């Protein structure tokens, strides 16, 4: 079954064609990065306007790249849950128009479920059950994946998302936006033990996260050094901060894997592209004899291919949406 996926939940306008939930024929992502840099983050109204401008072009490009027309499409999957409401509705309005005009099934997908399926798309052999850490600028969640489309939330962030902490620290240090890739690159030149930052909640019994204390600690240290006229080794700060985030993410994920007795973990979302975080996961998992899976780099950040894959899985279970499909900016992942 050839599925057209559409994703507009935040700052990427994306469309993709995926066959049978596993073969990506095209994956087009129009990023609003230029706007984000200009405004230092996502401005919902500006992002929604840009989605409206781009949505037609992105869908056409996805069809042309795959050498297909809308007549070849057998169903449309679209992010309808979790994200900025004004952004989500552009994708859903487009998807239901195609569904109605072509008389093909429509399926609304939860954005987080899309991220989980980024790993399924990258690794058809991904075992279930496993523990999944999905981590980006918008969320940080640990899930027990019983099988495709059946999840249990184990823990979530109580304040900032991990990616948000990267962005805020980068902004504070006067670095570029988004902060993740910039800090990742800068950190390769710094010492991971140059500063000792806290690992918030790493010993707590819950599987929840908190990153605001770490952020405050970095900022306070920076201000102290400024006040004392001491040198500000940005690469060291970046490396030590990133190491603290990696330790917390890996520590919590390992605890979840042990509690649930699984031999595999998957990491997904924008932060899963971070090279040091991948490295710490690989080292730790090797020691503990646990398999670890990451999506292809192109599937880490928001993309429509993962939405098409998740939509296909839902449709295989007999789920479809009707033309009254609405958007829900904040709902838990069901199933």
């Amino acid at each position, binding site marked *: 079954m050839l599925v057209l996926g559409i994703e507009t939940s935040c700052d990427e306008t994306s469309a993709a064609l995926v066959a049978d939930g596993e073969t990506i024929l095209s994956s087009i992502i129009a990023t609003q990065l230029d706007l984000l840099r200009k405004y230092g983050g996502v401005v919902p109204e500006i992002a929604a306007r840009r989605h409206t401008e781009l949505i037609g072009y992105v869908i056409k490009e996805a069809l042309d790249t795959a050498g297909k027309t809308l007549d070849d499409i057998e169903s449309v999957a679209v992010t309808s849950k979790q994200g900025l409401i004004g952004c989500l509705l552009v994708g*859903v309005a487009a998807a239901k128009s195609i569904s109605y005009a072509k008389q093909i099934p429509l399926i609304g997908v939860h954005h987080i479920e899309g991220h989980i399926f980024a790993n399924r798309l990258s690794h058809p052999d991904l075992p279930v059950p496993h523990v999944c850490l999905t981590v980006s600028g918008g969320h940080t969640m640990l899930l027990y994946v019983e099988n495709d489309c059946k999840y249990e939330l184990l823990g979530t962030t109580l304040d900032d998302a991990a990616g948000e902490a990267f962005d805020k620290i980068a902004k504070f240090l006067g670095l570029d936006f988004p902060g993740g890739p910039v800090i990742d690159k800068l950190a390769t030149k710094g010492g991971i033990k140059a500063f000792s930052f806290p690992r918030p909640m790493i010993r707590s019994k819950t599987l929840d996260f908190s990153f605001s204390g770490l952020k405050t600690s970095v900022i306070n240290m920076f201000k102290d050094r400024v006040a004392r006229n001491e040198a500000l080794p940005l690469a060291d700060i970046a490396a030590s901060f990133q190491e603290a985030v990696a330790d917390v993410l890996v520590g919590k994920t390992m605890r979840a894997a042990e509690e649930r007795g699984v031999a595999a973990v998957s990491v997904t979302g924008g932060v899963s592209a971070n090279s040091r975080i991948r490295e710490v996961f690989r080292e730790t998992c090797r020691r503990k004899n646990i398999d670890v899976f990451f999506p292809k780099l192109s599937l880490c950040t928001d993309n429509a291919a993962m939405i098409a894959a998740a939509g296909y899985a839902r449709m295989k279970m007999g789920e479809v949406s009707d033309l009254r499909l609405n958007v829900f900016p904040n709902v838990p992942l069901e199933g």
Partner: protein
Amino acid sequence: MMVLGIDTSGYANAVGLVDDEKVLADSTYAAKTDSLEQIVANIDSTLKSAGLALKDVGGIGVGLGPGSWTGIRVGVTVGKILAFSTGKPVAGVPTLQALAYGARHESSLICAVISVGTGDAVYAALYRPENNAVRRIGEYYVGDVKGLTALLTGPAVLVGNGSQAYTRIVKQESGMNIKAVEATPGGAAVACLAEQRLELGEKDDVLSLTPLYLKESTAKAFVNKYKSSHT
């Protein structure tokens, strides 16, 4: 040419069907905050009520706004993606023009007014009726309703949702002879104006069609102001 017209710029989904200026359907569905949820189903029931299907339509007209920013994004996206999916031509119509078109049989000038949604601010434009059409005179207006006195030079009808209240304010300010016509933008009016454009060969590009916001988002306006005062 049979044209489907849609407008979701206000607190209703307007859907109309015309064929050679003959109105086949003109429906208004209440949709306070659920334009997105209802619009495609509204289009379907309007078509069915006329015994038609989407494939029978020759072109699509869409109200571009101004109005609710969320609302016009829904309408414009649905209009252009329906056109893209069916290969039919699309024509955008300013919602203020569709409002004025509804009052085209008036003999005086027509001032179409739409609430911005905050305080007494309005979007407005002045139109002259001209053989079954309306032509805009001057620029679009965005500002306090009292400022409409500068737009109006003589007798006029003020058409829009809430026009009674606007008329009272304008009369108080200027003492001018203004008549109020209470109306919301109609789907058939959008369809008629789109049909006129399409028959003149003035179709819009289906991919690049965008709403007529008439106002920058607050964030952008702030950044621009900041920049201009620092250069």
